[in-house]
């Protein structure tokens, strides 16, 4: 059990309408590691997390959590399994009508019958771990973006999940918050013995904390390995992404017919 990867995806194909998001994608997430999934915007990184969490179902292929196919689970089994998963959403997704304390307490109140003093101690412990114990009586609207994300992280930690999925945790954060979040992801992973999947396109921050990196583009994995291995890669596609080059194998221009044809048509219409 301990050597088995916590998530194993094999030959996954998924499409939205006519658009293929993933084609025959396979990857594994080893237990206890911080694994980053990177790639350009809009290639389905968040979709991948939703497939692992069972909010979407694969068209073909297997998404296995602890060896069990998520796509084949009944609704009740899925809810049972999700108690071992946590997901930090890009927006934080805090409930705006309750305090930070109640937000963090919600999963505990839903899934346990802990007496109130014990529950309070647990919630404060979770908030302390993200540095927000002092903000427990505030409403989500009173927090900055970075603090809201940390509060949401405390809520995700509430049930001590085996796996935490971070959806673009660094987007739109100032450098200090960015550093705090990166440190939290790494330290919580190691201190609590969890596994973390970080979906992001912030190369610098992710490379600093990840044990292993998957690079996704064009519906498939185009590169994988430890951060240093990816930095040393000779693949033009990997290099374009890692170095942030505007044009390359991922084109700058949206596909279109030749510009000359458009201009010629304009000239014809005027004549």
């Amino acid at each position: 059990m301990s050597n088995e990867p916590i998530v194993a995806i094999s030959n996954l194909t998924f499409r939205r309408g006519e658009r293929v998001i993933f084609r025959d994608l396979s990857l594994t997430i080893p237990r206890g590691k911080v694994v980053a999934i990177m790639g350009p915007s809009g290639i389905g990184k968040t979709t991948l997390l939703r497939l692992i969490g069972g909010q979407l179902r694969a068209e073909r292929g297997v998404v296995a959590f602890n060896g069990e196919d998520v796509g084949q689970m009944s609704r009740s089994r899925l809810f049972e399994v999700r108690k071992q998963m946590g997901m930090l959403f890009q927006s934080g997704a805090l409930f705006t009508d309750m305090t930070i304390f109640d937000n963090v307490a919600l999963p505990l109140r839903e899934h346990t019958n802990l007496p109130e003093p014990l529950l309070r101690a647990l919630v404060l412990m979770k908030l302390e771990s993200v540095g927000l114990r002092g903000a427990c009586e505030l409403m989500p609207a009173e927090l900055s973006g970075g603090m809201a994300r940390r509060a949401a992280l405390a809520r995700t930690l509430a049930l001590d999940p085996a796996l935490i999925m971070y959806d673009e945790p660094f987007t739109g954060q100032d450098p200090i918050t960015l550093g705090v979040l990166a440190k939290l992801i790494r330290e919580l992973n190691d201190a609590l013995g969890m596994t973390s999947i970080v979906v992001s396109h912030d190369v610098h921050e992710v490379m600093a904390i990840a044990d292993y990196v998957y690079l996704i583009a064009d519906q498939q994995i185009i590169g994988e390995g430890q951060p240093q291995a990816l930095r040393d890669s000779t693949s033009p596609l990997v290099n374009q992404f890692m170095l942030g080059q505007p044009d390359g194998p991922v084109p700058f221009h949206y596909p279109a017919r030749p510009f000359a044809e458009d201009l010629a048509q304009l000239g014809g219409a005027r004549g």
Partner: protein
Amino acid sequence: MVEFLARNGRATLNHLAEAGRAGTLLFRVILGGYRLRRDWSLLLKQLYMVGVLSVAIIVVSGLFIGMVLALQGYNVLVDYGAEESLGPLVALSLLRELGPVVTALLFAGRAGSSLTAEIGLMKATEQLSSLEMMAVDPLKRVIAPRFWAGVICMPLLALMFNAVGILGGFLVGVEWLGVDQGSYWSIMQAAVDWQDDLLNGVIKSVVFALVVTWIAVFKGFDAVPTAEGVSRATTETVVHSSLAVLALDFVLTAVMFG
């Protein structure tokens, strides 16, 4: 021609799929087993949001509609020397038709739209997804308390509307236009039948409550999670539930009084 058929076919399929999703939602909410003992505080909060906050608009509207009914009724009845019948005219119009129907329309505009917008925004800000990922069923936690609060509140609001409307009729008919007070109340009491009038009105109101709240929570839950999607869903809630109420009212009236 082929394109026309394809477009209509696609639209029909979309509507059927939507109806299927709406049916599944209702089925899950009703048969999902509402955890009243555990979630009574959630229900209480929604009873306040959906019911108590609607009282003002219901009371004011009821009062004015009762007053208008009395004024219009009096002008017709007085020509035949039948102004004593003003009481039953006001009471029967309210109990059988205006109470349940106008309450449902007002409820759709006041509470239905707010339910849809709230749930739609919870979806757009990923709050519903985060509940799912916390292994908490949003249907039980978010939808069910709102649905049951609507179903409980609307018949009570309709009764309130009726009572205030009859009082409004009294103010105009008796206090202003001089209809005999004893006649107003006694002829009303004699003419109104508990089962035919009051009970049927309440049954109508319960049916409207189910339909309006169902449409409101479903439209929010099914909204496209964008600003435009939530805005469209909110509009659809008011339009669809108003039309549904008026159409159902005809059917129910035909069955009950036809």
